[in-house]
């Protein structure tokens, strides 16, 4: 009887459960897998002066044979031939890695201070970290142009306090430095919040216990606090590193002509050169590059659990 009841209950909940589980997968298939295959298909096509500006266009099942025979991987071969693309990929990874390190160095103390603050003001502090989201991301990046440009606010401030002569100007705008400033500023909440979540639930008596056993506070940080916050460190780093690698807006608005990032290259191929197949190939390679850190992340999460 118990078995019958059990299977009956499962039958009832079954449809609902299937629906709940299927929904996110359906979402992923519609808005990730399907577009990815379209992009992938385009990346195997050739450019054409037409609308859309590529061939072949899929025309019925009868043409499948025909269609497949026209696909080739010459775009991928081209990507490896031209050092520009390899350089752009490497430069993107470098900028993302340095930015993530900077974000960790700046974000960790902030998150730690928030987690150690008295419980009554913590919600306010979290609110302050989220506050920038009230303004559009694009507007905030534009605001940095106003600050960093040669006759911008930073120059005015430094001249006003006398750190800079009236003729001098800050030469940061349109350099990699400006790109780093913009990235660190924009992504800081994404680093601070996972770190804060990891640090906030840490039991303070662990540090007291370490102290009690003869471990001075600074050493206790490295032996206890930091290892226990590693899941937060990894989550924050992944959440920042992955989108920074493909970042386009910040290097485009704040970076110089020599700031090489794959997002910018992709944009140029797509809109400047109208070479959709090559741009698609760039995107596919980028995705594959980023899947690796995601897999490391997933693996780490599994280990923690």
């Amino acid at each position, binding site marked *: 009887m118990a078995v019958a009841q059990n299977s009956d209950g499962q039958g009832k909940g079954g449809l609902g459960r299937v629906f709940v589980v299927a929904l996110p997968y359906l979402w992923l298939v519609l808005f990730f897998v399907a577009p990815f295959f379209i992009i992938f298909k385009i990346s195997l096509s050739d450019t054409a002066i037409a609308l859309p500006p590529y061939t072949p266009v899929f025309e019925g099942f009868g043409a499948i044979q025909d269609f497949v025979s026209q696909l080739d991987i010459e775009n991928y071969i081209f990507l490896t031939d031209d050092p520009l693309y390899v350089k752009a990929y490497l430069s993107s990874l470098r900028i993302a890695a340095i930015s993530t390190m900077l974000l960790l160095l700046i974000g960790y103390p902030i998150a730690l201070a928030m987690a150690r603050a008295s419980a009554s003001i913590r919600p306010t502090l979290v609110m302050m970290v989220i506050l920038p989201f009230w303004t559009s991301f694009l507007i905030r990046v534009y605001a940095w142009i106003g600050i960093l440009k040669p006759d911008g606010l930073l120059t005015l401030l430094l001249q006003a306090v006398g750190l800079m002569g009236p003729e001098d100007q800050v030469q940061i705008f349109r350099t990699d430095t400006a790109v780093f400033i913009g990235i660190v500023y924009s992504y800081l909440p994404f680093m601070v919040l996972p770190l804060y979540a990891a640090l906030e639930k840490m039991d303070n008596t662990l540090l007291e*216990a370490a102290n*009690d*056993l003869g471990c001075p506070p600074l*050493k206790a940080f490295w032996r206890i606090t930091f290892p226990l916050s590693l899941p937060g460190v990894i989550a924050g780093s992944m959440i920042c590193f992955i989108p920074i690698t493909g970042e386009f807006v910040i290097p485009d608005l704040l970076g110089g002509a020599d700031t090489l990032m794959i997002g910018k290259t992709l944009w140029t191929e797509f809109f400047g050169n109208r070479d959709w197949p090559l741009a698609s190939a760039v995107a596919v390679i980028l995705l594959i590059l980023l899947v690796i850190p995601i897999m490391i992340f997933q693996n780490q999460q599994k280990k923690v659990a």
Partner: protein
Amino acid sequence: MAKTLGPVKRKFSPWTDPSAVPFIRFENITKRFGTFTAVDNLTLDIYEREFFSLLGPSGCGKTTLMRMLAGFEEPTEGRILLQGKDIRGVPPYRRPTNMMFQSYALFPHMTVEKNVAFGLEQDKLPKGEIAARVEEMLKLVKLEDFARRKPNQLSGGQRQRVALARSLAKRPQVLLLDEPLGALDKKLREETQFELMDIQTNLGLTFLIVTHDQEEAMTVSDRIAVMDKGVIVQVATPAEIYEAPNSRYVADFIGDINIMEGTVAATQSALGAHGTIRIECDGVSVSVDQECQAAVGDKVAFAVRPEKVRISPDKPVDSAVNAVHGEVWDIGYLGDFSVFIVKLDDGRVMRAAQANVSRLVDRPITFGDMVWLTWPLDAGLVLTR
């Protein structure tokens, strides 16, 4: 279940020796948190190798007192002497005390082994010595087979043992135990209490334990300090605390007791001398043989423990004992004991406990019976505070 017992405990009472030097001395300690006074001008001596309990309800300042000794808090006023040296300003990581935390505070990312070794590593001992000491400690708490487990793979009792092993590994001069057995079930708790006593005797360490569990304090301690609202009400051996509480508060906090408010009607001897004191408690007259601490007319409390009160259907023949008459109102059958709740003729309630020495299921005294409660002159207590 046969158990090997440790060495026979010998009588240990350095506090009665005026020449003994206290190992730990709290001297006029006051601790305030903002406007709240957690510990109020408290003075206390603890001797070497003593198993000392701080007992009191939550919020009485016992944990604060212990945390001041560990170095997590500094006293607002007064000083703490450890072996005669003032330890103000010495950080926790340089104090020769180790603490077993109420929550155990095991490091979740380290194995049992690593947890126990943590304190030893801080002292930069050679690797071989650390390994040997860890093994010895794990053997002591019977966890040799669990050395490579993480704390979340252990049961509550095992975690508690790891915490104990970790705090003992450095052989601290003083081991502080903050409600160490609170999370364990009764049976495991009792077993562990005896193990703690064995360990303390074998290693010859000074243990300071904070607890709100009076049974635990009674079982393990050489002496108990009963605390209330930041002050110590009484410091004495478990037997003294139980048999001769110095106040209504202590009498009521430790064990079960009948208390009646009354006035001293007659005293046989002078103040401070031993004699019979007669107390009138609203129509009930009781006599107590005790060292006299009150004068005629003083408001005092009369107290007697339920197990010292005899219950019987017959009026006592001996007129020298105290006797009151009443009706059995309720009976609590506890297995080893039965507690009779008796409503006296004037409406007051008294409790009498009787050991169930026979296997009779139907007790001779039952609900509604008219009974006499009697107790000898030396069974009761006069409480002046």
